């Protein structure tokens, strides 16, 4: 398959704007459709690898992908343009939606809908965690780590600013011992 990176910053901006504009229900599938299938900026394998890397970096993964790809194609200007393109419309829309919502928040029905949507969104996180965790939890050390972090974060409500660094060092030790 022939792939060609965007030719100028304007094209890069419009591509990411288009991803952000229609990314209902999650950005990742739309990023794939726009960049790999429609505009053919990069190959499937390249996309998968870039996003895979971004998942191991802090920050939103497509946000990071916009930084990494923008840099690859146009340097610093590319990173900034791609990131702003991605965030511009969703930023405006989420605030607009919130303003509209706040106008109607006193209506019990609206409140019930939004609370239900929130609970369903929480369910999507639980589903994602179960899906990702199923494979990992076959190793006892990984399962123990998951349970311990969950207890600290969700039950004891300790700050992640303590949990994450400590858990990471423990996990790194376990990984080097080949327990994970």
């Amino acid at each position: 398959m022939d792939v060609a990176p965007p030719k100028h910053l304007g094209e890069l901006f419009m591509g990411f704007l288009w991803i952000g504009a229609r990314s209902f229900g999650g950005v990742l599938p739309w990023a794939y459709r726009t960049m790999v299938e429609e505009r053919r900026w990069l190959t499937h394998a390249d996309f998968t690898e870039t996003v895979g890397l971004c998942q191991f970096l802090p920050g939103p993964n497509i946000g990071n992908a916009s930084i990494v790809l923008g840099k690859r194609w146009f340097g610093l200007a590319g990173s900034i343009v791609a990131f702003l393109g991605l965030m511009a419309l969703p930023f405006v829309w989420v605030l607009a939606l919130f303003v509209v919502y706040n106008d109607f928040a006193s209506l019990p029905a609206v409140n019930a809908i939004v609370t239900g949507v929130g609970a369903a969104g929480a369910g999507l996180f639980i589903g994602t965690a179960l899906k990702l965790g199923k494979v990992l939890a076959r190793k006892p050390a990984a399962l123990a780590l998951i349970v311990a972090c969950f207890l600290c974060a969700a039950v004891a409500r300790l700050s992640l600013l303590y949990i994450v660094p400590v858990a990471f060092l423990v996990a790194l030790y376990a990984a080097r011992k080949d327990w994970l």
Partner: protein
Amino acid sequence: MTLLELALYFGLLSLISVGGMPAVMPELQRYVVDVKGWLTPGEFLQAFAVGQAAPGPNILIASLIGWKVAGIPGAIVALAAICGPAAVIAWWVAELWERFKDSPWRKAIQKAISPIVVALILSSGVIIATPGAPDWRMWLIAGASAAAMLATKVNPLWMLGGGGVLGVLLL
């Protein structure tokens, strides 16, 4: 002062946001609701719901919190702060990471991060579904949505819509 506080705290959060927004939700909720009292548990849940239902990266919930706390400047500062430090890391690390493709340390880091991210995403789900006292109706909606996601491959917007319908019927 509040803007500075937002910037510093969200900037710090940015550095540990491995796995994206879902992974830092427990911390965000703890700080914004429990420690600072900027939002009530119900308001936090609603901000989360709006962030999920709107298109775009779900990190945008940061801008909703910023907006609640300090208006439009708060929204911009919060979003910039939660993305900025992570973006700088992505900018520097991406090539380095490629170069160490076969390093045992790179593989160890990947393996170490995965279980932590899973635990944090699970914690997020449970915490968000329990905004006040435990409520079986909230857990029922969350459980149904999780089950639908695991059983099918439809766009998650259907689950959010279903949650809205169940919300009207149950809540």
